[in-house]
């Protein structure tokens, strides 16, 4: 049998390469195959070139490259199935962890955070990118690929921004805005204007666009434009609560005083009333002094003050304390709190000697322990309630004092 020499083999190999067979393994396979056929068909009276020219066209319909393309297709198909499997599994994983995570979150049970993070991560980093890769291969038109791409980018950003917002991580709001921006200004226009051009997709495009606009608009209404809105409403709710409690206790105390007809009790009640008025005017004096200090004498409502000085530590420290020159870290009390404390001690003593010693539990003027950067320290009452606290906490503590006094009064009226 005829055996091809090295130059003939090289000639065939170069020809295979020239005809678009890129994979080395495929080149070697085809080379051996062609050589076998050529060697079989060679006879003493035929030339190598003629036989080769006759054999090669049997390997393809149009051109040799077809074999390379078919191989590529089959090899990517293998990946295609693997990717599809991973996509479906990640989708299922996302769905299950998301549902369980949400249920745990609603029930305030542990483990919700980690499940939500896993769900959103698998959705954003596995499912959606694979979805884009697989679907974009199926789409033949470029505009459809662009729509798919922007849609997936929106989806990933939306998922991540939701996660960041739920976990109170930074930049959540920024991502949320960015996601909605992509939806309204990139995805929707491309989707709408490509869809309405074709008569067969016109109606569906209009309907889908309306749905997207509605859902996107609903999501936009959830956007927190003023991040401190919740804090403000919480403070005003707390203020309202104290004001209501104070009003009610004051009213019920007044009616209790009025119901008293026995003269011997009348005297005692009058004394109590007097003591209460004194202490409350002292508390209010401190409070009003504090407000006047902050507003520099201008008239501003308590709620507006709360909004303006919310989270302000410095103004509280400036009113109640002065910084020691010797040791800047150690604040010294100004006279406001010692006067208030002395008045409160006097009131406690009055109630203790005339009524009950139990007032201590309601009006606690003892100090406590506070966690400092350097460790836990024992601090006095003034420091515990009025040092290193923001404005709203200082006001709450003053309001709480007033309410405690009213409650003690209520239990003492005879």
């Amino acid at each position, binding site marked *: 049998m005829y055996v091809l020499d090295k130059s003939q083999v090289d000639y065939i190999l170069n020809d295979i390469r020239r005809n678009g067979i890129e994979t080395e393994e495929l080149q070697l396979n085809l080379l*051996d195959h062609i050589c076998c056929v050529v060697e079989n068909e060679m006879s003493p009276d035929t030339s190598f070139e003629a036989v080769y020219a006759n054999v090669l066209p049997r390997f393809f319909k149009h051109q040799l490259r077809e074999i390379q393309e078919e191989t590529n297709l089959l090899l990517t*198909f293998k990946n295609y199935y693997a990717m599809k499997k991973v996509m479906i599994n990640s989708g299922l994983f996302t769905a299950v962890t998301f549902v369980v995570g949400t249920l745990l979150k609603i029930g305030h049970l542990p483990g919700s955070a980690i499940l939500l993070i896993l769900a959103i991560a698998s959705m954003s980093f596995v499912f959606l990118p694979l979805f884009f890769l697989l679907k974009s291969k199926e789409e033949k038109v470029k505009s459809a690929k662009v729509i798919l791409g922007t849609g997936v980018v929106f989806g990933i950003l939306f998922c991540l921004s939701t996660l960041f917002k739920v976990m109170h991580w930074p930049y959540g709001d920024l991502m949320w805005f960015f996601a909605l921006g992509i939806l309204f200004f990139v995805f929707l226009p491309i989707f709408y204007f490509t869809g309405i051009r074709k008569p067969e997709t016109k109606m569906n495009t209009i309907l889908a666009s309306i749905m997207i606009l509605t859902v996107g608009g609903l999501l936009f209404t959830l956007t927190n434009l003023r991040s401190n809105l919740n804090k403000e409403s919480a403070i005003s709710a707390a203020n309202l609560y104290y004001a209501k409690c104070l009003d009610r206790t004051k009213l019920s105390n007044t009616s209790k005083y009025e119901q008293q007809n026995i003269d011997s009790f009348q005297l005692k009640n009058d004394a109590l009333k007097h003591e209460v008025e004194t202490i409350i005017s002292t508390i209010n004096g401190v409070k009003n002094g504090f407000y006047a200090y902050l507003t520099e004498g201008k008239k501003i409502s308590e709620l507006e003050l709360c909004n303006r000085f919310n989270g302000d530590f410095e103004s509280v420290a400036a009113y109640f304390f002065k910084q020691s020159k010797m040791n800047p870290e150690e604040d010294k009390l100004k006279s406001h709190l010692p006067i208030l404390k002395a008045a409160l001690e006097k009131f406690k003593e009055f109630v203790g000697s005339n009524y009950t010693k139990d007032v201590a539990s309601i009006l606690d003027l003892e100090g406590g322990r506070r966690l400092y950067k350097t460790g836990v320290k024992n601090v006095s009452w003034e420091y515990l309630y009025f040092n290193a606290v923001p404005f709203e906490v200082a006001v709450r503590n003053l309001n709480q004092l007033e309410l405690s006094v009213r409650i003690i009064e209520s239990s003492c009226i005879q």
Partner: protein
Amino acid sequence: MYSSELIKGTLKTIILKLLSDSDEMYGYELTQRVKELTGGKIQLTEGALYPTLHALEAQGVLSTNVVNVGNRIRKYYSITPTGKQLANDKVNEYADFIQTMTFLLGLKPNLG
């Protein structure tokens, strides 16, 4: 000779069955064996054979062994254990398919 459409659906089954019946074979040998066994009625085209061989190799169904033959390299294909199982499944599936087609196309009187 049968149409390429008919052969396309059975190509994997043919390759797997032939390789599971022998130790190892190379591409040209496979085409010749099929031609010989079918009396030339089935001829595997190279354009379909090699892409399928490469895909089966990538799936881990086939393993390869490279041998120097004269001035060129020859790639021998042999079947892996997982490939053997797949070959069995494919042959059984095809046998079932033939039965169904026989019934469907009325090639045999329906006695049931």
